[in-house]
Structure formats: structure tokens, C-alpha cells
């Protein structure tokens, strides 16, 4: 019995064990230093006061101004229109860009493709709120600026997902259409388009859902919709109205998510 060697197994060698311990110590030291940098300008009186302030605002926000809803139907309808028309315009603009960007359909990989990719990247890198800021300055405030802002932001999203899906299509179906002597445009319409249609529909519905959420805040910079009301209510500290606005926005988003989920289920 005593001769029997006891099996020993360690996950790490002693040296590695020490390295892991050292890493933990360093991480802890770094965190405490970072916390100090982060809070050097914090006025602690305000932070300790925070629960009281939150409770105060919360108290003033309740009950919601229920009757205010009658003034919100029109801006809600505008918001819905901004999202829907913006998405449609986005699809129309993004589809050709996607065909120009996909490796297998672009007329030129050296000249055209980089331009299309740049358009997609530019559209994606700028938030729709910033697009709206620019457009309100150019077009003046209103729904049109909102629609175009949503469309410009959607080009990148739809374009990127669509061109990736074009690059993944079955090449032999395209080859077969080309072999019949079809023109380039016909090869796109008959060989490529049928293969990416379900994806395009899915992407569009997904983007519409996102655009509803984004268009609720566009009014903050003057681009129409429910955001205008939100800004006005916040400006005069009409807290019960703010509550009502938040409820209305939440309800809209929930309904749009429910619609997109139902549509996407149909598509698959």
C-alpha cells in the first residue's frame, strides 16, 4: 500500500502558475489606477445625491400625461413614414451598390469595386443622427431630411449584407444562364437575382425594424417625427409628457419587432 505512488496532475507547470498569479496582480493594480483617473473630476456630492435626484424625477414623471397621446398620433405616423420610406429608398440605392461591390458581379475589381466598398463604409461609419444633423442644415428641418438620413445610413447596412450574400451564390446557376448566350444584365436578373431575393427581403425587414428605432430620435435634431415632441417636452421639463412619449416609443418598437419577427418567420 505505502509503495503505491500517488498520481499527481496539475493543469499548469509551477512556473506557469506563478505567471497566472502575476497577471492577476497586475490586472488588479491597473484597474485601481484606471478608476482613479476616471473619477478624478467626479464631484462625489452629486453621485451620493443620485438616488434622491432619480427618485425626485421619477416622482415628477408619474403619472404619465395620458391625454397627451392625442397629440402624438401624427408624429408617430411621421416617424413610421420616415422609417419605411427611408428603408425603401435605402434598398433602391443599396442594390446597385451591392452588385458593384460583389467580387463575382462587379464590372471591375480594380476600379469599381473599391468605390462601391467606400460608399458602403462611408454610409455605415456615420450614424443616422449625424446624417440628419447634416441634412437638416442642408435641406432645412422636416420629414424629408429624416427620410434621406435613414436612407443614407441604410445603404451601407443593406449593401454590405447583400453583397456578401451575392458572393456566396451558386456559380453554376449563373454559368448555365451565361451559357445560353444571355446578356450581362440578363445573367444578373435570371442567374443572380433569384438566388439573393430571400436574403434581400430578410435584410430589408431587419433594417426597417432598426430604422423605426433610429427615426424616433431623429426629431431631436429637427428631422421630423416623434423626436421633435420629445425634445420640446424635455426642453420645458414637462416630465409627465416625457413619460407618455417614452411609452409611445416603446409600444411602437415592440409592435415593429413583432411584425418583423412574423415576416421573417414567413420568409424562412
Amino acid at each position, binding site marked *: 500500500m505505502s509503495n503505491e505512488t500517488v498520481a499527481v496532475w496539475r493543469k499548469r507547470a509551477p512556473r506557469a502558475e506563478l505567471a497566472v498569479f502575476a497577471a492577476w496582480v497586475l490586472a488588479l493594480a491597473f484597474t485601481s489606477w484606471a478608476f482613479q483617473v476616471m473619477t478624478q473630476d467626479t464631484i462625489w456630492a452629486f453621485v451620493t445625491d443620485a438616488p434622491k435626484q432619480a427618485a425626485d424625477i421619477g416622482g415628477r414623471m408619474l403619472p404619465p400625461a395620458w391625454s397627451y397621446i392625442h397629440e402624438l398620433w401624427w408624429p408617430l405616423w411621421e416617424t413610421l413614414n420616415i422609417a419605411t420610406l427611408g428603408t425603401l429608398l435605402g434598398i433602391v440605392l443599396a442594390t446597385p451598390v451591392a452588385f458593384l461591390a460583389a467580387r463575382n458581379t462587379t464590372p471591375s475589381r480594380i476600379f469599381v469595386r473599391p468605390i462601391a466598398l467606400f460608399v458602403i463604409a462611408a454610409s455605415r461609419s456615420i450614424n443616422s443622427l449625424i446624417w440628419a444633423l447634416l441634412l437638416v442644415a442642408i435641406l432645412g428641418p422636416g420629414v424629408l431630411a429624416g427620410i434621406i438620413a435613414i436612407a443614407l445610413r441604410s445603404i451601407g447596412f443593406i449593401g454590405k449584407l447583400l453583397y456578401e450574400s451575392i458572393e456566396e451564390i*451558386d456559380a453554376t446557376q449563373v454559368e448555365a444562364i451565361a*451559357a*445560353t448566350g444571355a*446578356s450581362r444584365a440578363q445573367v444578373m436578373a435570371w442567374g443572380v437575382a433569384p438566388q439573393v431575393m430571400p436574403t434581400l427581403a430578410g435584410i430589408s425587414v431587419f433594417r426597417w425594424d432598426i430604422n423605426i428605432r433610429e427615426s424616433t430620435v431623429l426629431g431631436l435634431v429637427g428631422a421630423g417625427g416623434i423626436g421633435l415632441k420629445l425634445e420640446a417636452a424635455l426642453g420645458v421639463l414637462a416630465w409627465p409628457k416625457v413619460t407618455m412619449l417614452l411609452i409611445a416609443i416603446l409600444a411602437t418598437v415592440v409592435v415593429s419587432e413583432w411584425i418583423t419577427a412574423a415576416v421573417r418567420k414567413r420568409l424562412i
Partner: protein
Amino acid sequence: MQVSPAPVLEIRGLEKRYPTGDLAIKGVDLDLAPGAVLGLIGPSGAGKSTLIRCINRLVEPTAGAIRLAGTDIGALSGGALRRERRQIGMIFQEFALVERLTVMENVLSGRLGTVGFWASWFRRFPGEDIAAAYRLLDRVGLAGMENKRADALSGGQRQRVGIARALIQHPRLLLVDEPTASLDPKTSRQIMRLLLELCREHGLAAIVNIHDVVLATEFLPRIVGLRAGEVVFDGPAGDVSTDVLTSIYGDEDWTAITRRMQQAAQDDEHLDEAKLVAIAA
């Protein structure tokens, strides 16, 4: 004695080098008489697919000449190339139907070269094309299936759609790439029989790229063996012996295969008929 008609297809010194440097086709010469049917056999990677794709320029040859009824296909581009492609029907291994389109749309896609873009976008095809499509669907055994989607069909049915799509082009030449590779043995034989019947009915010349030697020698009167991009055999199906198979595929015990080939030849009188046609051609 015999006056051989001008070949519908002439290939001279065809060469294909891929950008990677691989030489897939090494100087192939081939003639095909009008109405003649040829089986192209050879091991995987011998260049069978590349060879037939060079003929309709889905693959660009790097040297040599391809003449279809006297026209040098290699020199064409743009619209002129598309016009020549209309005269060449192609049938694919995995059928290559547009899966989300209907049977009728897939068949009519064979007429795309003859209608404008917007007419094809709105599916407005000339009446004679639609009549031809119905006739062909009837002929290949798919009557009443025109509104089914291609992805709802079985393998054999899909290949029949593929055949109808190629024939509605009214081609001079049919390129057939492994028509039976995705099918079970019974369906394979049905499809081969249908193909050969249709070639005879329409007086069509065809190159059938096929890896099943027994099926090839049974149905196809002339066999061309390709090995590493070179033609190593060109003769009647009856001359395919163990020595020939060794020259095409390399060393192996071929007696079982040749025995099955002889068996098939005895079983199938129609083979002799096909051979007579080949000798006459």
C-alpha cells in the same frame, strides 16, 4: 467512297493553362461531324470539363482554335460571342437550374439570348418560344409540371428540365457535362437514352463528358479518351479494350469492366444500331 461532311466542330491545338501554371489541356485536336455523338472519358482532373467549357468559352483557352460551323469562336467577344453561345446548348452535372424559378422559366431561359432585357424581366417571351417550351416539356416527360419550382423536382426531373433548356436554344451542338453523375443507375440510363434519342431526332452533334465507362460505351458510338489534357484514344466504342483503359486511366485490373461492357453490348441491340449510325456518319 465516303464523302465526309464538313465538321460542325473543329478543334485545333487547343491549350488551356490556368493562372496557377497548371496546363489542363495540352494541344487537343478534335473533329465532330454534324449529328455525331461523342463520349469523352478520362480520370478526374484529366481536363474533360475544362475542354467542353473551352468550346463555349465559359473557360478561356490560352492557345488553339475552335471553329463552330466555320466560325472561329476563340476570336469572338461581347455580342458576337453571345450569338455563338446561343448555338451551343449545355447540360450540367448538378443540373444548374435556377432553383427558385419555375420549370417554365428555366426552360425559357434558354431563349434569353433572343429577347431583350425588359421583355425577359417581365417574362414576355414570343408565342413560338412558349409553344416550343410546352412541346419540349411534353417530349422529356414533364407535361403539366411547368409551374413547379425547380427545387421541388427530383434529380431525374431536374436533368430533364436541363435538357429542355438546352434544346430550346435550337443548338447546332450540345455540350453535356457529366449528365448522370448525380443520378441513380436507373435514372442515369433513362437520361442517357433520352439524350441520345433527342440528338438523333434533331440531328444534333454532342460531346458527352462522362466518367462511367460502361454507360459511355453502351450509349455512345464514338469514344475519346483524355489523360492529363491529351487525347490518348479516339475510336469506336467497340474498340475500348483493357489496353485502352490502361492507357487512359493507368494500370488496374480492367477485366471486370470490359466483361460488363461486352455483356451490355450483347444485351442491348440498340448499341449495334448506334454503331452503324456512327460508321455511316
